[in-house]
C-alpha cells in the first residue's frame, strides 16, 4: 500500500503527467462551461487520445477532465442561469439569484470551494471503501456475477429513465448488442451478418462515442443558436477568504452533502443531477431558515456543488470493484480501463495496484488544481459560453469520427459509430436513454458468462436451480433485483393513488352542486 502510494505521488507529480492532469482539468472546465456538452461526451472523445499513453497517464488525464467538468458546470449555472451539465441544475436555484444580487464572485468561490470539499471527501471514501469492496468481489462466483449484472441493469433501468419499461427495454437492447460476435464459451458466431470485423464484437468505445456524442450534436443543432447574457463582475479582494470562512463554519452541511453525493454516485444510473437535487432538498429540510433558499443562499450552493463533485468518486466505486459503472461517465472510464487490458475487480488493487492508486490519488491533486483554476479564473472561463454553435457542433462530430477511427484504425468502426449515433438520437426521441443501453452492453458479457458457467456448474452438480438461487449472496442479489424493479412501480402507484384521492377531494360534491 505505502509502495503504491509513493509510486502514485511520483507519477502524478512527474511533469508530463501533471501537465496532462492540468490539460484534462482545464478541458473539463471548458466543457462544463458550455451548455449542451456533457462530461460523458468529453470523456468519450478524450479516450482515443489517451489509449496510446501509459495507462496511468491516460487515467490521470481522464480523471482530471471528469473533475474539471464538475467544477466548470457551475459557472454557467451561476452566470447565465443555465447549467453547463445536467449535474449543475440545482446550482441555478441559488447561484444565479446570488449573482443577480451583485455577488457573482461569492457564488463562484462557493461553487469552487464546495466542489473541492466534495471532491476530497469523495476521494477519501473511494480510497478506503473500494479495496474492501474489491475483496468482497473475490467471493463472487458465476451465479453472483450473473445476478450482479442483472441487479445493475434493473437499477439503472428504473432510475435512469422516466419510464421504467423504457429503461429496462434499453438495458435489454444493450444486452442484445453485447451478444454480437463469437459467444464466450460455445464459440457460436452471432449476428455478424458475414462481416468478419464483427466477430470480435462491437467495440465498446465506438458504441460509447456513437451513443453519447452524435445524439448530442444533433440535439444541439435542433435547439439552435442561443445567445446568453452573462452576468459580469469585478473580482474583489478578500472575497475568497470570506466565503471559505463562511463555508467552513458549516461542516455538517458540507459533510452531509458530500456523503450524499458519494452514496448516490454508487447507485448506478442515479448520477450528479439526482445527487445535487437530493442534497439541496436535504439542506432545505435541515435548515433553520428554509425560506432563504432559492433567493441566493450560499448554503444552497454548497449543498449542491459538494454533492455534485463527490458523485464523481462515488460512481467509480462500483465500477472499479465490481465492473458496474455508477454513471455514464464512469462507463466511459471503464471502457478506457478495458482498452488498457485492466479488468475491474480485485486485480485492479493487486496486479494493477500502482496504476489504480495513482488514478485514485490523482483526484486529490485534481480537485485542488481545479479549485485554484475556477476560483481565480471563472470570469475568463465564463467567456467560453459564447463559443458559436457553428463551430462547436462540427468540432464534436469531427472528433467523434477521428476518435472512433483511432481505436482500431477501422473505417467500419466509424460507420458503426454513426449508426449508433443515429440510433441513439431516434431512441432519445422515443423516450429511451443511452445510459441503460450502454450499461447493458457493458454488463452483457459478465451476465452471459455468469449464466452459462452457472448452467454448466449446476448441471454437473445435479441442480441448476440450486446453483442459481440457493447461495446466500445470490439470494441477496435476487432480492435486490426484485426490490429495484418493484420499488419504483409501488412508488408510482402510490403517487397515482394520492393524486386520485386529492383530485376527488377537490372536485365539487353533489351536495355542493345542489346548493348552487
Amino acid at each position, binding site marked *: 500500500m505505502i509502495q503504491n502510494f509513493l509510486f502514485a505521488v511520483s507519477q502524478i507529480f512527474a511533469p508530463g503527467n501533471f501537465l496532462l492532469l492540468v490539460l484534462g482539468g482545464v478541458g473539463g472546465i471548458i466543457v462544463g462551461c458550455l451548455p449542451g456538452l456533457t462530461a460523458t461526451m468529453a470523456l468519450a472523445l478524450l479516450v482515443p487520445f489517451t489509449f496510446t499513453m501509459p495507462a496511468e497517464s491516460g487515467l490521470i488525464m481522464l480523471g482530471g477532465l471528469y473533475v474539471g467538468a464538475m467544477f466548470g458546470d457551475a459557472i454557467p449555472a451561476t452566470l447565465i442561469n443555465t447549467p453547463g451539465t445536467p449535474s449543475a441544475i440545482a446550482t441555478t436555484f441559488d447561484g444565479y439569484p446570488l449573482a443577480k444580487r451583485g455577488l457573482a464572485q461569492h457564488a463562484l468561490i462557493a461553487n469552487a470551494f464546495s466542489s473541492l470539499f466534495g471532491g476530497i471527501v469523495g476521494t477519501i471514501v473511494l480510497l478506503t471503501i473500494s479495496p474492501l469492496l474489491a475483496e468482497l468481489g473475490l467471493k463472487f462466483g458465476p451465479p453472483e456475477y450473473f445476478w450482479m449484472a442483472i441487479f445493475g441493469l434493473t437499477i439503472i433501468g428504473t432510475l435512469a429513465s422516466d419510464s421504467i419499461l423504457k429503461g429496462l427495454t434499453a438495458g435489454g437492447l444493450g444486452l*442484445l448488442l453485447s451478444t454480437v460476435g463469437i459467444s464466450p464459451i460455445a464459440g457460436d458466431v452471432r449476428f455478424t451478418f458475414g462481416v468478419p470485423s464483427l466477430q470480435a464484437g462491437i467495440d465498446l468505445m465506438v458504441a460509447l462515442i456513437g451513443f453519447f456524442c452524435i445524439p448530442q450534436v*444533433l440535439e444541439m*443543432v435542433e435547439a439552435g443558436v442561443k445567445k446568453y447574457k452573462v452576468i459580469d463582475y469585478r473580482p474583489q479582494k478578500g472575497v475568497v477568504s470570506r466565503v471559505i470562512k463562511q463555508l467552513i463554519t458549516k461542516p455538517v452541511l458540507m459533510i452531509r452533502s458530500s456523503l450524499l453525493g458519494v452514496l448516490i454516485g454508487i447507485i448506478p444510473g442515479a448520477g450528479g443531477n439526482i445527487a445535487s437535487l437530493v442534497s439541496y432538498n436535504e439542506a432545505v429540510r435541515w435548515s433553520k431558515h428554509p425560506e432563504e433558499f432559492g433567493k441566493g443562499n450560499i448554503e444552497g450552493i454548497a449543498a449542491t456543488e459538494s454533492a455534485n463533485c463527490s458523485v464523481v468518486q462515488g460512481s467509480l466505486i462500483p465500477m472499479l470493484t465490481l465492473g458496474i459503472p455508477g454513471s455514464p461517465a464512469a462507463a466511459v472510464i471503464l471502457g478506457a480501463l478495458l482498452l488498457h487490458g485492466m479488468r475491474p475487480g480485485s486485480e485492479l488493487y493487486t496486479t494493477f495496484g500502482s496504476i489504480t492508486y495513482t488514478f485514485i490519488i490523482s483526484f486529490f491533486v485534481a480537485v485542488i488544481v481545479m479549485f485554484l483554476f475556477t476560483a481565480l479564473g471563472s470570469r475568463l472561463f465564463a467567456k467560453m459560453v459564447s463559443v458559436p454553435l*457553428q463551430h462547436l457542433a462540427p468540432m464534436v462530430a469531427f472528433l467523434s*469520427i477521428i476518435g472512433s477511427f483511432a481505436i482500431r484504425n477501422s473505417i467500419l468502426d466509424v460507420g458503426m459509430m454513426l449508426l449508433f449515433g443515429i440510433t441513439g438520437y431516434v431512441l432519445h426521441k422515443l423516450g429511451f436513454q443511452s445510459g441503460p443501453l450502454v450499461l447493458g452492453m457493458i454488463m452483457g458479457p459478465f*451476465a452471459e458468462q455468469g*449464466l*452459462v458457467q452457472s448452467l454448466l456448474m449446476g448441471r454437473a452438480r445435479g441442480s441448476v436451480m440450486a446453483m442459481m438461487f440457493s447461495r446466500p449472496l445470490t439470494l441477496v442479489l435476487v432480492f435486490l433485483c426484485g426490490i429495484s424493479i418493484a420499488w419504483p412501480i409501488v412508488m408510482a402507484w402510490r403517487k397515482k393513488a394520492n393524486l386520485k384521492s386529492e383530485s376527488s377531494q377537490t372536485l365539487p360534491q353533489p351536495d355542493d352542486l345542489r346548493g348552487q
Partner: protein
Amino acid sequence: MFSIDTLSGLMVLTTAAFAWFYSRSFTYYGGVFVSWVVLILFGLGIALTAKGIFAAKPMRVRDGKFEHWNVVGIVGSLTLSILAMPWVGFMVTSIAAYTCISLLITPRSARTPRSWLESLGVGTVAVLLFYGVFRYVLLVPLPLGALFS
C-alpha cells in the same frame, strides 16, 4: 397516429423477432443467453405496445422544419464523408464535412461569403491540427485515400 409508446413497443418487438429468427441456429450454450434476452424483450415490447394503446399519448412532433432538415443534412454530410474516406482520405472528407455542418447550422440570414470562408478556415485549421496530433504524436495512421496514396 401511433403513440410514442406503441411505436417503441412495435420497434422492440421487431428487433426481438429479428434476433429470435437469427438465433435459431445457435447451439444451446451459444444461444441460451440470447434466448432469455429475446424473451424479455418480447415481454417488454408487448407491455410497451399495450401501454401505448391503452394509455395513448400523442406523439410529439417538434415544430420548426428548419432544424429537422439540418439534422438530416448533418447525418447526410457525415455519411457521405465516411463513405468517401477510403478514396479521398481523412483530410479532404473531414474539412468538407466540417464546413458543411458549420454552414448548415449557421442561420440562413447569416450565410454570407464571409461565413463560408470562416467555416472553411476554422475547419481546415482544426482538421490539420488534429491530423498532426494523431499522425505524428499518437502515431495513429489516418487514411490518406486511395486516390492520393
